[in-house]
């Protein structure tokens, strides 16, 4: 090994910093033990760095040694007790360790119980948090809806049940400014499997239906209020039951509810 070159490569400085990988450090440690020149160089680097670091210290912390020694003494009290080697002491020792062992088993059991309690507690908290989040979302929606209902630009159009479902009922809240129709479908029966409600905007003379959308995921929607885009000059709204995916034109035999927009 060319020692001069090794030293001037700068690896020794990085070694003292602790900036090398573990493997590289081991190699330098080895070289340092084999070559006194390298060792001397490392010591000089270390000395310079120590001096540099010392200048950053607010003061010399010599006085702290006393308080560190006190802490050390406190920790050492137990281990410094002299050992007593009488037989009965060792019997007591055995007895104590057996008692301790039994105690430990109980503790392990307790510990497991506690851990289970803790994890079920955590699950409960998570559930609560979810519920709160849900409630907050609901409240948010309700506020939004209230804002819609109170908006003076919104007209309310009640849709009455037709032949297939005389009990059915729905309401359209239509904001003409924003071209939005909110469908309150709380009183529509749940659609059968494979079927979906489709909302139509109608022109009356002549009768021209235009689809404005589907009431998707009807069963899972909690408040049964659906927001649809409606840019049409609607004169009436109707809701029909259609095959999944909706239809091009309404199936009139499956017209559930219908209502005309009252003249302003």
């Amino acid at each position, binding site marked *: 090994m060319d020692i001069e070159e090794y030293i001037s490569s700068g690896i020794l400085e990085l070694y003292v*910093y602790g900036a090398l990988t573990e493997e590289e450090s081991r190699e*330098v*440690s080895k070289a340092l033990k084999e070559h006194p020149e390298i060792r001397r160089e490392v010591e000089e680097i270390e000395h310079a760095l120590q*001096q540099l670091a*010392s*200048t*950053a210290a607010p003061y010399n912390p010599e006085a*702290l040694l006393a308080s560190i020694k006190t802490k050390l003494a406190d920790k050492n009290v137990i281990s410094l007790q002299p050992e007593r080697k009488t037989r009965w002491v060792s019997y007591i020792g055995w007895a104590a360790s057996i008692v301790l062992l039994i105690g430990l088993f109980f503790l392990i059991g307790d510990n497991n119980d506690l851990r289970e309690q803790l994890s079920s507690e955590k699950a409960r908290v998570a559930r609560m948090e979810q519920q709160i989040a849900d409630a907050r979302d609901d409240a948010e929606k309700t506020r939004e809806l209230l804002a819609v209902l109170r908006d003076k630009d919104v007209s309310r159009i009640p849709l009455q049940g037709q032949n297939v479902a005389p009990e059915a009922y729905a309401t359209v809240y239509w904001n003409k400014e924003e071209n939005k129709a909110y469908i309150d479908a709380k009183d529509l029966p749940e659609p059968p499997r494979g079927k979906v409600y489709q909302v139509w905007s109608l022109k009356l003379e002549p009768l021209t239906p235009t689809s404005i959308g589907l009431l998707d995921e009807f069963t899972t929607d909690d408040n049964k209020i659906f927001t649809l885009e409606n840019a049409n000059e609607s004169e009436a709204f109707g809701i029909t039951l259609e095959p999944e995916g909706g239809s091009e034109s309404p199936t009139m035999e499956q017209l559930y509810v219908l209502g005309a927009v009252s003249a302003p």
Partner: protein
Amino acid sequence: MQQDGLILELQKGNQRAFERIYELYSESIYGIIYSIVQDEKVAEEILQDVFLKIWENSSSYNSDKGRFFTWILNIARNASIDQIRSKSHKNKQKNLTSDNFVDILENKTHFSAKMDAIGIKKYIDILKPVCKKLIDLLFFKGFTQKETAEELEMPLGTVKTKNRACINKLREMLVE
């Protein structure tokens, strides 16, 4: 200077050896800790913890892995970094003014006996900006060679040679 016999005594639990180790390393380690946490009281507490750890874990030091000073340095930097990552520290220290050891040295108002104001000014003045950065990252902050190269956008080998030149400057000044 690393004294292998002294470290061996420390590892045997010799309290005299511990005291000697404290005398040898406490001030520089305090400087490192202070440059990271920048609070005298907090730095004092960490310094005490570090030396308690040195006492308790001295047997885990192995000279095949590196220098004793480097071993202590790592304990101190880790303890300091843990502290500044902790919540209490973040709440306390919102407006740190110094970014590295250079700022600390420049703002220093009182000095320990070993190093006077002129000496410190000298330290700073002879260091090129790139040296200040290199030493700050590698020594005070404990970056690896690779991390330093990435941070300063410098080839790995350049980190090594440039830093060597910086330390040589420092050493020249110390000899004067």
